[in-house]
């Protein structure tokens, strides 16, 4: 039993699938934003996995640097997204993104 590139990529794909499910299937703006965070994190894990066990080991620290950039971009996206969620709530008293249709 070991942990290498394959296992980490499977976990990354599963996390990405969870995020995509949240984005597609849930109506709450907050849960959708959490889904995008999981998708960012899944990409970062894949980069780190390739940087540790794959061809990324040829350039030291490259995978981790990309993961840092992805994480910071995700936080910036979360800040803007949550502000938009607050505006949706202010308007509709609900976090549902399709509250306008009701």
């Amino acid at each position, binding site marked *: 039993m070991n942990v*290498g590139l394959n296992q980490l990529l499977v976990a990354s794909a599963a996390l990405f699938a969870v995020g995509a499910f949240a984005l597609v299937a849930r109506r709450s703006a907050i849960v959708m934003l959490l889904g995008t965070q999981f998708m960012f994190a899944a990409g970062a894990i894949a980069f780190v996995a390739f940087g540790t066990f794959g061809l990324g080991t040829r350039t030291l620290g490259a995978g981790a640097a990309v993961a840092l950039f992805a994480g910071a971009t995700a936080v910036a996206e979360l800040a803007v997204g*949550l502000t938009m969620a607050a505006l949706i709530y202010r308007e509709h008293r609900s976090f549902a993104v399709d509250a306008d249709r009701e």
Partner: protein
Amino acid sequence: MPLIGALPQPITSAPLVILLYVVLTLMIVSALTSVLVRDTLWAIGAFSSSMVLIAVLYLTIAPFLLFAVQLLVFTTVSAALLIGLLRRTTGLGRSTQGPLHRDWIIGAAVVAALLALLVVVLATTSWPIGLIGNAGPGVGEALGTKYVVGLAVLVVILASAALGSGLMLAAPTLPSLRGGGPIRGSGPRR
């Protein structure tokens, strides 16, 4: 002669492998929980726990800087932003579940099992000291030399996101045709 040379070998140390499998499984489970659970506060808690587990994963396979940034910056800032949003909108209601509720007991059992596994791994392997010593300076050097332009762009993105979200929240509320208005801090949480 091979073109790329030999790639690093997978982790085979038994306690560390078990820890990694547990961390990966709990990470997926808590992510799924945060997506499926109805209560927003519980969703944020599960999201934060999955972010902490990602940090533990980084501690094993990535440079220490990434672990520290993931744990101290990304997880903390994300949780603070989400809690701040709840405080400004629906409010943070007290939990109706007592300390002896089944959910609390299950959560405490999982945390205790993970801590016990961590103790076993720390006692039987050189993790995380060996990994930190091997892979520490790489990412800092790369950020300061190869990716310095990207780092500067990232700082601009983060600063403009912080400024933009602050301005949006501070903007006066316009009268709404649908009956909305300023947030008073109470109401149903969805």
